[in-house]
């Protein structure tokens, strides 16, 4: 729980009585199809990129091509003369606003990474704008840049902040007596790992359409939380909150990249006002890479100590993550807490350095900082199991934590052991030594990896349920539907609470003018767990209101008549009080089989079993979709994906889908099986946790451990590409 909201949390309504743990529920728990499935596959669903307004103009950003310095000359004469161009603005051509808590205006002459916004072109078509942008002549005063962690940490490196290149200094997380645990350790394992920058690659790029009218600004925007974007945008533009409306229809993927306000929001809004016309601003795919942000690349040294019997005594990590040019987003550069709570230990310690660099800032990406940390930590655990000659599953079962190491609290619910046992059973896990399954040139291996992920993010949130014209029900939630199925599960919750069939309930979301203010953003695998109880409470209140108004049969015509007589019935509920004295977290364990080709180094992931403790699963079909998508993104992280920069200029070399390798259908395993190992959780009245991020977090290490089991060599710099594997076993003499 974040401190600023402690009072709000204490004053929040008492949770409703818990739903029964077994049986009884009619609609919740059913594998109903996604409400928007038909609209999406037929193309009827409207995404922000589909929005077209009469008289709409198109904006294209001008981006810096140097990593550090300033624009000394922005010559747009040729660009302004081009056909269709309605205007070109450089740093000095408008009073550009500054986003909250930032110091650099959204367009400025200072440059701190390749791709930073230094100007904008507006034309009648996007093509005209893009062509005009190329006709701008830029002159820079370049300064020495640090585009890698090493460059930034080197002696004599240019300083990105007066106090040094480590944002906020070194953070230390420590619990327990490390010296004592070290003294007890009979086996110590130490290894170094590095993870690359990973890009979100949403199918729908970042973008918006801004239009001003008599009432103020309307912004159609592809984001993960329309209300928070609205609040931050109003603050940026210094205009009344009531004059800003943000509409986020269906969103073509977010994965964390669309939580925060970005310069493009404000630029589109400013230009639409300046030109008195709707302005569309969408990023091209190349811009998605160079300025759409990413998961930070990290390096870490992990030390584990254990007894010979496999009791884990300590975890000691030193972590460095690339923080970008500003301390503001540095928290996304690296973290360790979810790794440190994953297994029981006598002592844990992490030293975290968030290193300022002349690269774009890292932003959340599905399991931010946890995915890269647990990816490495769970391989270190596997290395420890190998060193101890203990089955990796047995080692983990020997080290189940009952109390959260960092919070010092028992868990609101923890079914990690069930994840291990049910997952292993579904997979058919029988430990086998490395290199024991060689079938000609194909080496087979199995591996596992686990995940713990906190569920404690807190801010006020509200939901409404209404009985409307015709006797139908509408759930109103102030969230953006980024594809997880929020359009479906809230209707299931409301239908359950109201006792009506699911087809009587629709979900309304993604418009700040007609939804209550729910959570900040659809993030941290919590939308169901946080907004869901409010939906249930609102539905419960609505049911009572309808009964008071004389409703008897719940038939549509009867309720419709009530609505005719009284007007629509609308009930809202605030977020319920968070649990006290317990720590809420999600858990999971993945089991993977791979086949590695001895000569090419190609890794084929054959099958995966993904057991998760997501509390009560509201909709197994949607949960399975989350598991499949998350597993594939974890597969990409383990085997394929990496941003590659030119170390001299800081320019990205693979800012294109053909060169940045995301997993395709031929890379996907034949089966990704979801095993529901959870039980209704004590963290909220629905018993719901989340399943958005844990599947990505657990997948990478399970795959990497299976590769080790198959080949006997361990690649510790990711992704595990065929080149690196071949080099590793030629070095190992395999």
């Amino acid at each position, binding site marked *: 729980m974040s401190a600023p909201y402690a009072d709000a949390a204490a004053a929040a309504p008492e949770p409703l009585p818990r739903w029964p743990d077994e049986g009884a529920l009619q609609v919740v728990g059913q594998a109903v199809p996604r409400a928007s499935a038909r609209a999406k596959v037929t193309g009827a669903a409207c995404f922000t990129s589909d929005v077209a307004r009469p008289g709409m103009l198109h904006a294209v950003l001008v981006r810096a091509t140097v990593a550090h310095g300033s624009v000394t000359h922005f010559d747009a004469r040729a660009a302004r003369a081009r056909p269709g161009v309605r205007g070109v603005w450089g740093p000095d051509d408008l009073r550009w606003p500054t986003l909250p808590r930032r110091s650099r205006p959204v367009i400025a002459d200072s440059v701190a990474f390749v791709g930073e916004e230094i100007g904008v072109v507006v034309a009648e078509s996007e093509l005209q704008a893009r062509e005009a942008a190329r*006709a701008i002549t830029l002159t820079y005063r370049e300064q020495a840049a640090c585009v890698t962690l090493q460059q930034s940490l080197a002696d004599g490196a240019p300083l990105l902040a007066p106090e040094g290149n480590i944002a906020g200094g070194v953070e230390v997380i420590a619990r327990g007596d490390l010296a004592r645990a070290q003294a007890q350790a009979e086996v110590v394992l130490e290894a170094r790992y590095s993870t690359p920058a990973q890009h979100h690659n949403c199918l729908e790029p970042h973008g918006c359409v801004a239009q001003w009218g008599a009432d103020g600004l309307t912004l159609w925007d592809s984001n993960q939380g329309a209300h928070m974007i609205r609040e931050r945008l109003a603050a940026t533009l210094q205009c009344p909150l009531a004059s800003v409306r943000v509409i986020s229809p269906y969103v073509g993927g977010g994965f964390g990249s669309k939580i925060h306000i970005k310069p493009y929001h404000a630029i589109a809004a400013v230009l639409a006002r300046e030109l008195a016309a709707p302005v569309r601003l969408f990023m091209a795919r190349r811009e998605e890479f160079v300025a759409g942000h990413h998961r930070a690349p990290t390096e870490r040294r992990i030390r584990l100590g254990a007894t010979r019997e496999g009791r884990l005594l300590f975890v000691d990590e030193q972590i460095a993550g690339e923080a970008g040019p500003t301390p503001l987003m540095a928290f996304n550069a690296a973290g360790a807490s979810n790794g440190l709570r994953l297994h029981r230990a006598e002592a844990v310690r992490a030293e975290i350095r968030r290193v300022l660099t002349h690269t774009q800032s890292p932003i959340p990406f599905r399991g931010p900082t946890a995915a890269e940390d647990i990816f490495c930590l769970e391989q270190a655990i596997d290395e420890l199991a190998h060193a101890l000659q203990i089955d990796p599953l047995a080692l983990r079962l020997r080290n189940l934590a009952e109390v959260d190491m960092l919070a010092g609290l028992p868990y609101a619910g923890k079914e990690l052991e069930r994840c291990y046992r049910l997952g292993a059973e579904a997979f058919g896990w029988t430990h086998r030594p490395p290199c024991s399954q060689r079938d000609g040139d194909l080496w087979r291996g199995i591996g596992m990896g686990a995940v713990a992920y906190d569920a404690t993010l807190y801010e006020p949130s509200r939901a409404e349920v209404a009985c409307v014209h015709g006797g139908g029900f509408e759930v109103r939630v102030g969230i953006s539907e980024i594809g997880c199925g929020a359009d479906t599960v809230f209707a299931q919750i409301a239908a359950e609470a109201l006792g009506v069939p699911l087809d009587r309930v629709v979900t309304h979301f993604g418009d700040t003018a007609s939804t209550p203010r729910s959570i900040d953003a659809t993030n941290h695998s919590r939308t169901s767990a946080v907004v869901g109880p409010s939906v249930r409470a609102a539905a419960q209140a609505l049911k009572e209101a309808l009964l008071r108004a004389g409703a008897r049969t719940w038939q549509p015509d009867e309720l419709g008549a009530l609505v005719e007589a009284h007007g629509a019935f609308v009930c809202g509920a605030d977020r319920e009080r968070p649990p006290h004295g317990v720590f809420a977290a999600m858990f999971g364990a993945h089991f993977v089989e791979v086949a590695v080709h001895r000569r090419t180094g*190609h890794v084929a992931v054959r099958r995966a079993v993904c057991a998760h403790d997501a509390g009560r699963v509201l909709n197994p079909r949607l949960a399975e979709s989350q598991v499949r998508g998350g597993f594939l993104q974890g597969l990409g992280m383990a085997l394929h994906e990496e941003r*590659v920069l*030119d170390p001299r200029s800081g*320019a990205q*070399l693979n800012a294109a889908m053909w*060169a940045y*390798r995301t997993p395709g259908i031929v890379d996907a395993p034949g089966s990704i099986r979801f095993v529901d190992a959870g039980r209704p959780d004590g963290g909220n009245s629905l018993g719901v946790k989340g399943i958005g991020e844990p599947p990505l977090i657990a997948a990478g290490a399970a795959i990497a451990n299976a590769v080790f089991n198959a080949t006997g060599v361990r690649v510790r710099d990711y992704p595990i590409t065929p*080149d690196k594997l071949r080099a590793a076993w030629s070095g190992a003499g395999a």
Partner: protein
Amino acid sequence: MTPRVVQARSVEEASALLRAHAPHAWPIAFGGDLLGLWKDGVRERAGDDAPLWVDLTGVPELAHIERGADGRWRLGAMVTLAQLQRSAASFAPLLAEAVERIASPQLRARSMLGGNLLQRPRCWYFRQPDIACFKKGGRGCPAVGGPPQAHPGALGSGPCHAVHPSDLATALLALDATVEIVGAGGTRELALGQLYRGAAAAREREARLAPDEVLAAVCVPPQPATQAFEKLAPRPANEFASAAAAVVLRVNEGRVAGARVALGGVASEPLLLEDACALLSGPSLERFDAAAAAGRLLRTVPALAPSRAAALCELAIERALARAAAAAG
């Protein structure tokens, strides 16, 4: 700046248009490569020239596969890869195998033989619009000393180290194909082995075509069915080759009597391995040791040996040899 597109109705008209608008005119087929280069702002020359794209896809005589009186197969440059895959299975199986490993079914349905042969390098530095390099009018090769993933060729040297990306070039070289080129002076034929000569030192195009010349067709002589193509790439689909090998064997009384072995993915042009026949002839094919033979063949390119590509090249050759030899069975 926005390219103008004109539909050519004949090869001669296309050539005349290219000549009239040189040096700002380029032929375009599906545009799988040219459109990407243009959208990314990868330019050969600076300046505000409005390019003219001469669209060849509507030229009827370019879209056929036919067998000539001389027994050679004539493949029109505007034949789609999907069409080529279907047809070539009967007369040049290795060509069909090569097509099957290119890109994805969607792209094969739309992209064309001529465009595949004339595509520009896939070097990440060449494709990065803001970094100068020889092929973009600058000097030298920034890929040298860059990260290995940016893949300069294993055999790179000179002003550009980029690899030629076409798998079909490798396949057609093994098939001893020729290309039919139409220009101002009429039609000329060039061996595929000559088409990319000097590619590393040429700025604007890798093939030896004059700006007004159109690659109209590829002619493939009849070849024995003992042939195979192998491609190794980081992933099974949508990837350019890390190493590709195409093998055609002529087998006489159970022994190799002739061989053409081409290697792709390592140099600015596909390589025809010298003395393949001599290195492969020997005991009867029943006792053929493809691995040993591949090692012998690879040693004919001494510069490859120390490179990280050597093992993959050897494997590609070995697999192609083994399958071609098995076809003699």
